[in-house]
């Protein structure tokens, strides 16, 4: 099979007997061996496990009894998900040697579906970043231009899927960490509704904002990946107890009569004109397919980044208190307990993680709590109300995923400049609304551009249907980067 075959193409070939899960897995492992020195997508390649799973998958296809539409699908998993017996670093020195005793729920569900896990992918440390440059271990490069970042924080999984080093993958999206790298790498990134997919076994960054999200080469694959992991999990108290529809079955119904809102505030100053043009052209495609397009307003959009950079660091400062050199991970000796903990954390965390812990601790500290954290939580309500008003009139919102295309390594050294990357992805994170980035063209320099569609709570099906209609009407998914 060609390196950019979709999961549904692969599994159809497995079922027909024209391709073999073992041969396909060997092909991906060989490609990783030959090309990942260039891309840097993987932190750990689980070669033996992958081959053993592929052999079991092959036996099931021979018996005519695959476990699911993902049986034998070779996937890349962000190193934020716990994998039993396989080192899980979260991109941090403080967890460099951590070997989880259990699988994250999504990992367990993917194994049960027969998926082949190729390895664990690079990420910004503790998922804090938009370029994967904050990994403690290595740089990941954008397969479309190796001098540029793949986006982040789930940059490794995005680069793996774009580069043909996995057929699909998973990341986490807290402020845009799947949609933004998907846009930068020219693949699909789908953030479902908050609580739709269990967070159990996902190393926590900001618990009220962390979402598990798949990367894929097309929307049918996205529907299959999401369907395999979605659904209530008693191990996650914030998991939503709602029926999971057959996402793949919802595709193909088109967008005739669908009301698409275009939020004015997502097309203002700071948006790259090439992206502006590409996204407006994508909206025209939806209109030509029968959607009713109308302008909407989300007035609090410009406050999203500031709100997020209070809420997320506040939650992170609390979540990351567990790294104390006692139960797991790094320990640096000190003269007493507090000294040991403080030295361990100083040595184990990188600059961005320290910055966010400091920011969050400050925002929660006595005398500042109401002014920062309290106010941010109230603005979060205003952002939600904006969306409620918009969704009273429209079914789906269409906007850019990012204000710019993939930037060069080192280009955004100023923390605030890096944070501004998330301006269009943060609002759907704070409101828990499902949102997807779909490739919608290329810049003159050949870099991918992402169209973001945002939907109603738990209405992933409508979002997938709209994204599928757009994808099928456009040629973008046929282009892939060459790494040779």
């Amino acid at each position, binding site marked *: 099979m060609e390196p950019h075959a979709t999961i549904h193409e692969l599994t159809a070939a497995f079922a027909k007997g024209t391709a073999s899960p073992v041969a396909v897995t060997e092909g991906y492992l060989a490609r990783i061996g030959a090309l990942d020195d260039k891309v840097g997508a993987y932190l750990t390649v689980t070669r033996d496990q992958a081959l053993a799973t592929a052999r079991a998958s092959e036996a099931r296809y021979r018996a005519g009894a695959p476990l699911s539409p993902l049986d034998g699908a070779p996937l890349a998993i962000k190193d934020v998900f716990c994998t039993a017996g396989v080192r899980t670093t979260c991109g941090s020195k403080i967890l460099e040697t951590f070997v989880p*005793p259990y699988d994250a729920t999504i990992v367990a569900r993917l194994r049960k579906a027969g998926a082949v896990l190729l390895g664990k992918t690079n990420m910004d440390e503790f998922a804090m970043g938009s370029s994967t440059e904050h990994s403690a271990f290595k740089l990941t490069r954008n397969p479309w231009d190796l001098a540029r970042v793949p986006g982040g924080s789930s940059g490794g999984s995005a680069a793996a899927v774009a580069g043909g080093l996995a057929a699909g993958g998973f990341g986490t999206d807290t402020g845009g960490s799947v949609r933004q790298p998907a846009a930068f790498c020219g693949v699909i990134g789908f953030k479902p509704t908050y609580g739709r997919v269990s967070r159990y076994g996902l190393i926590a960054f900001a618990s*009220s904002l962390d979402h598990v999200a798949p990367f894929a080469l097309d929307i049918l694959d996205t529907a299959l990946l999401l369907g395999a992991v979605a659904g209530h999990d008693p191990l996650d108290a914030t998991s939503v107890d709602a029926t999971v529809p057959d996402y793949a079955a919802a595709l193909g119904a088109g967008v005739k009569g669908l009301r698409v809102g275009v939020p004015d505030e997502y097309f203002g100053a700071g948006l790259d004109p090439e992206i502006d043009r590409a996204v407006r052209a994508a909206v025209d495609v939806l209109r030509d397919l029968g959607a009713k397009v109308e302008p909407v307003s989300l007035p609090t959009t410009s406050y999203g980044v500031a709100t997020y*950079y209070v809420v997320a660091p506040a939650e992170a400062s609390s979540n990351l208190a567990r790294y104390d050199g006692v139960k797991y991970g790094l320990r640096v000796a000190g*003269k007493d307990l507090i000294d040991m903990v403080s030295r361990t954390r100083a040595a184990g965390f990188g600059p961005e993680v320290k910055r966010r812990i*400091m920011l969050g*601790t400050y925002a929660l500290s006595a005398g500042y709590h109401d*002014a920062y954290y309290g106010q941010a939580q109230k603005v979060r309500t205003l952002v939600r109300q904006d969306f409620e008003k918009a969704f009273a009139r429209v079914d789906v919102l269409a906007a850019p995923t990012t204000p710019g295309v993939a930037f060069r390594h080192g280009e955004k050294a100023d923390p605030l400049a890096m944070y501004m990357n998330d301006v269009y992805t943060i609002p759907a994170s704070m409101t828990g609304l499902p949102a997807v980035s779909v490739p919608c063209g290329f810049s003159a320099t050949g870099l991918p551009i992402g169209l973001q569609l945002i939907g109603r709570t738990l209405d992933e099906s409508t979002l997938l249907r709209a994204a599928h209609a757009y994808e099928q009407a456009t040629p973008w998914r046929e282009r892939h980067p060459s790494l040779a």
Partner: protein
Amino acid sequence: MISDADVAHVARLARLALTDAECQRMREQLDGILAYIDTLRALDTSATEPTSHAVPLVNVMRDDEGRPCLAQDVALANAPERSGEFFRVPRIIEEGPGEPS
């Protein structure tokens, strides 16, 4: 404006042993970020309730029944230092004068 003393105080609360150079850099960067965050004050939220979670779920409970958990050896396997069945940590309580060592 955040002061050097604020940075030192917050670093203590956060249990981060920062170097002087790190404190200095942190003060400058936090100043910039906090100035940006201060734009939130322009919004009138006097009649707005806070949102702590995207999905309104409260008090999710499970049945109060015992169930298997990680075996002790498994739970201790990643410990940087252990002593028998326990995590080992440096001394927590100072020895006072005259107390037996």
